[in-house]
Structure formats: C-alpha cells, structure tokens
C-alpha cells in the first residue's frame, strides 16, 4: 500500500502556541480518507502543511513521496469555507484554472458546472455556500490532481447542499480515481463517503483503519458492573463508563464477543469516533463517576 501522506514528528507552532505537535501518521493512497477529530486537533493545520500552504516548524511531511510545495500540480486543495474570488464570475474561475494549471481539464470543469447548475456568468460573490463549495471543488478537481485535500468542505452547508457536494465528490472519485483526504467533524457524512478513517485527537492518531473494519470490530458491551481488566486477548478497551450497578464498555475486538453476561450491541461510526475522542481525554471512569454525583 503506497502512502498519500506521511507525517513524522510533524510540528507546527505559531510563536508559543502549537497547532500541531509531534504528529506521526501514514495515510494510504487510493482511498477516500476521512480525518476527524475535535476542533483544535490539528486537522486543518495538517492539511495546510500537506498542500504547502504552511511550512512545518519541525518534523517531516511527505505528500505523494515528496516534500509538499504550494503550486504543485499533483495536489489539489479545497480550503475551509471554500474561498472564491467574489468579483470574478464562475466562468472567470474556470479561465483562471485553465491559465494556472497545465493539466487543466476544461471539459470536466464545464461539465461539472453545468451538472451542478451554476450559471457561468454569475459573480462568485453572489453564490450560495453550497454553490461556492461546488465551484471550489470543480476548480480543485479540474486540475486533475493525484491527491485532493479538502478542509471541512461541508461544515458550513445545509444538509441538501452537503449531500449534493458529497455526491459530486464521489462522482469525481469514481471517474478520476484520485486519492482524497477530507477533514470533517460530521461523522455521519464521512461514513458513507470515506472508506478509511483517521481519528486525530490533540495531534495524535487515536485510531486509523478502513471504515468497514472499524464498524465490524467495535462493540458496545452493557452488563453488570465489574472490573474491566478481564477482557481477554485481542480485545482493547476504547471507552468505559460505570454506574454503581452497570458497566458500559466500548471494545475493539477482531473476534466476536460471545459472553452471555454482556449485552453486545453494534456501534455506528459516529459512536466509535466519539468513543475514541472521549476515551482520549483521560481516565473515563473518574470522569463519568464525577459527573454522576
């Protein structure tokens, strides 16, 4: 499996504040990878480092096997809040893309603009959030990059615009076969469009894996209160919470859990991600018990 992005001890500091601290990860190529995590986890910083908009303070980052530089024809980037030139028309944006990218696919750009119903003569400043995002995606995709990075592309969109955007994105993936890394905190959206997921909490990878595997190997166990050290081999405790009488565990296990004393439930992706996020904040037991008093 080749890598789309490798980070090793990657750190980005602004003065004393560090936006990304000693981050090490390996994002496989050929996938639609979701990068999730709480605000401030460093997702946006990581993506901007990956497209060369930022320079690392320390550590190493490699994108498609090379040090990232801005202006690379290999990497496309759709920035957070999908900025566009308000004074330029939709058609102007396509002309800009054609002038600034040797690999520009004009046919693809025009087809997509027509498909999503954008008027080429419309000023970009008058577009809705969803239309703006579609325009930004079109400009980034028509460059025909091998890797497309998207920073919270749908965060500001209403559900319908979100769905349309993701549909467009997935069509592009099907047509062009490019690798995609997108950050988001809307896990429900990621579940359908991503086949690989990375949960980043405080610059650390909490869990990374194929979405299908994550769904298949995570279980919620509910039963009488007990000590949780007796889980057995091949099982890892992700999150736990206890009341006086009951224990609720989120467990990662490759083998099915056959234990009649537990009620075993499936978890959807959002539950899994949340379990990893909250499990990372420290000792789950103390926190929950604290909350109950």
């Amino acid at each position, binding site marked *: 499996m080749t890598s789309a992005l490798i980070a090793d001890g990657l750190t980005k500091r602004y003065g004393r504040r560090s936006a990304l601290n000693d981050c090490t990860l390996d994002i496989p190529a050929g996938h639609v990878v979701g990068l999730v995590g709480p605000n401030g986890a460093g997702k946006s910083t990581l993506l901007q480092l990956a497209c060369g908009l930022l320079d690392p303070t320390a550590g190493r980052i490699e994108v498609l096997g090379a040090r990232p530089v801005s202006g690379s024809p290999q990497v496309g980037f759709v920035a957070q809040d999908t900025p566009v030139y308000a004074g330029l028309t939709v058609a102007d944006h396509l002309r800009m893309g054609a002038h600034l990218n040797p690999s520009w696919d004009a046919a693809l750009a025009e087809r997509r603009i027509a498909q999503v119903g954008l008027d080429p003569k419309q000023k970009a400043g008058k577009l809705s959030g969803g239309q703006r995002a579609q325009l930004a995606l079109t400009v980034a995709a028509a460059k025909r990059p091998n890797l497309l990075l998207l920073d919270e592309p749908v965060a500001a969109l209403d559900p319908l615009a979100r769905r349309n955007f993701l549909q467009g994105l997935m*069509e592009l*993936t099907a047509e062009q076969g490019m690798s995609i890394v997108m950050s988001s905190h809307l896990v429900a959206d990621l579940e*359908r469009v991503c086949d690989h997921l990375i949960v980043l909490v405080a610059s650390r990878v909490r869990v990374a894996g194929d979405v299908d595997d994550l769904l298949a190997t995570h279980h919620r166990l509910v039963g009488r209160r007990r000590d949780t050290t007796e889980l057995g081999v091949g099982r890892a405790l992700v999150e736990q919470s206890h009341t006086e009488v009951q224990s609720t565990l989120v467990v990662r296990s490759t083998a099915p859990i056959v234990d009649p004393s537990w009620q075993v439930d499936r978890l959807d992706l959002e539950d899994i991600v949340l379990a990893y996020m909250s499990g990372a904040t420290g000792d789950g037991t103390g926190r929950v018990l604290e909350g109950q008093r």
Partner: protein
Amino acid sequence: MEWGGEVIEFHLDARSGVAPYMQLIRQVRHALRLGVLNEGDKLPTVKEVVARVAINPNTVSKAYRELEYEGLVTARPGLGTFVTRTLVGDSLSKHEPLRQGLARWLTEAREAGLDDESIEALFLSSFRTFSEARG
C-alpha cells in the same frame, strides 16, 4: 442518470452500525429474495449508485465483488453487473417448517417463565453472536 424500471435503488442508513457495503449487499439479497430482481437483471453501475446515494465508489465495488464471490451476480466488462441467480425458490419453500420450529421454541421459552422482552433480547443477542461467529 434516470434509472429504468429494471434496476433497483439503494439507500443507506447511517445509524445502523452496519457497514455501508454490507447494507448494499443486504439490499441486493433482499431484492433477490422478494423477486424484485431476477436472473439477467442489471444492477446499477458504480457511477450511478455513487451519483444517487453519495457513497464511496470503492464501497459499491466492494459490495459487488462480494456478491460476485457469492455467485449471485456476474460482472461483464463494459456492460455492467448482472444477476445470475435468484434467492426466491430456496428460501420461501423452507419458510414454513422453520416457522413451526420457531413457534415450538417460543412456547418452550414462555413455559420457562421468560416474558416477551426477555425472549426478544435473548433471540437478538444469540442471533448476533451466531451471525458474527460465522462472519
């Protein structure tokens, strides 16, 4: 993008905890079982599904590969994916004896003192364990 009457439409339930590719497989199997899909029918292309459901194309391909592996469909390069076998016959005919067996088990459970909810919980957890054990 308009689908003819001969193909099925997929949908995804994000909160089910079932992997998206598995949801697609189940929907195809279900359609086969109900006779919605018959031998020779075409499944929507990956692109069509992607455009319709906003789903990762790799996921659709994976589901189709799995269905092919099970011998339910076959991919003809350049043409599409076609149904090769239905599930109507083998399941519907066996329903009746199975139902009788289940009814007997339910009676036993009642006699053992379990109420409706306990029976349901017991059934669900056994079923899940059973199906997960078999992959």
